[in-house]
């Protein structure tokens, strides 16, 4: 099931250590790039709950999630 709500997801590459937990919890949303850092390749890829779980499981709190339309902060 894809995500209906439009999300704006950012990954802070100053802190991402490439441990791939986000990719593990939200497989369609996140993917590691050449440098093995995470990119939100498809913000609509997974249900919101899964995206939030991924963000929560980032050990260095690199991920922020907001509603792209309203700007509402969903994580942290």
């Amino acid at each position, binding site marked *: 099931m894809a995500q209906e709500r439009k999300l704006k997801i950012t990954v802070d590459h100053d802190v991402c*250590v*490439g441990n791939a937990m986000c990719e593990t919890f939200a497989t369609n949303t996140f993917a590691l790039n050449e440098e093995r850092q995470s990119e939100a390749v498809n913000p609509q890829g997974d249900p919101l709950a899964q995206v939030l779980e991924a963000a929560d*499981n980032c*050990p*260095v*709190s690199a991920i922020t999630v907001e509603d792209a339309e309203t700007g509402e902060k969903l994580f942290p």
Partner: protein
Amino acid sequence: MVTAVSDDMFTDEVLNDPYAYYGQLREEDPVHWNDLYQLWVVTRHDDLVWLTRHNELFSSAVFKNDPRPPYPTIYDSDLGLYEFVREYQARQFIQHDRPVHLDMRKVVHGYFTPRSMEEWRPMVKDVIKDLLDEAEERGSMDVMRDFATPLPLLIIAEMMGVPRQDRPYIREVAEKLLYVGRGEPWRMQNFSEGIREMIEYVTPLVEKRIVEPEDDFISVLAQGEREGVFSRDQVISNSSLLLLAGHETTINLLCNGILSFIRNPDQYELLRSDIEGMHVKANEECLRHDSSVKSITRIASEDVELRDKVIKKEDRIRWFISSANRDPRKFENPDQFDITRWPNPHVAFGAGIHHCLGATLVRVEGQEAFRAFAERFESLHLDTTEDQLEYQPSITFRSLKSLPITWN
């Protein structure tokens, strides 16, 4: 380039000041073949980051796949014990590659999210307060014995769900497990005894949590067994993981950090002048400047070219956190202890899929520990002379033997 550096990494000189030795390698021969120990020594920050993030090229299953004997050497009569230890160690997920590593890590990862570790902060603060109250009453403290050793242990015991009355016993066992990072030839005796006692101790706890889960760490592992990810043996092995992986490392952060503040009173003053604003940054700088873990091993899964060298399949590689965190290509004035440094992209916790599971916990412990010292003590002093400070003969851990201090 061939460098004139000697390959003996266990001399007093190198143990006391690893920064000069590995720093020279970093500048002269960043991917160095150490002929004496038959391994590659990798020392630059960008190479470490690259290497740790390419887990498919560098295997972590060192104990399972490396037939070479332990070093520094142990007594021949202890080789049997070593086999036992190695088999036990090989069950820990730190020693696994994907896909098994991911399945195992997923079970425990959720327990260590930054948010869930925040919930432990009040408890960590309480434990720190008690330990420092006791020290103040006595009027002196060996930071190692009286603060850094009991602190992580008390927290871990709480997380594991160890009943209060069993703590002195766990402390005794933990002392034996601390031999993991040492170089003494008899270390396997203490270490394997510690493991045996640990197994005996946690087995009934595990059996209980399988039937009646609670919210402690052993119950999380027990859930892993119910889901078929862990065998019973693995649950038992990994139950002691918190103790093994999180004890020596945290001790070193606290001791090395306090020592850095003693040697740099201006930085201590700076922390004291704005504790709220500085304690997080200060902790990161302690992690970087005199890192708890000096080096970690991998085995090449295929031939890999790195700089002008070819690392052959099955070759051993040791990557040195202590030199990467002092790499001038990444850090300005790298040898300076500067608690305003930010961002601080150190690799004290490694990187990639094996990035330290306990990092979130240690950050809470370190931040609160340095905060508490700064709140309480106007200035810190060594209660011994610089030349009396000694380090354990280990290339894995940067461990002081003791750290007696006084304060005003």
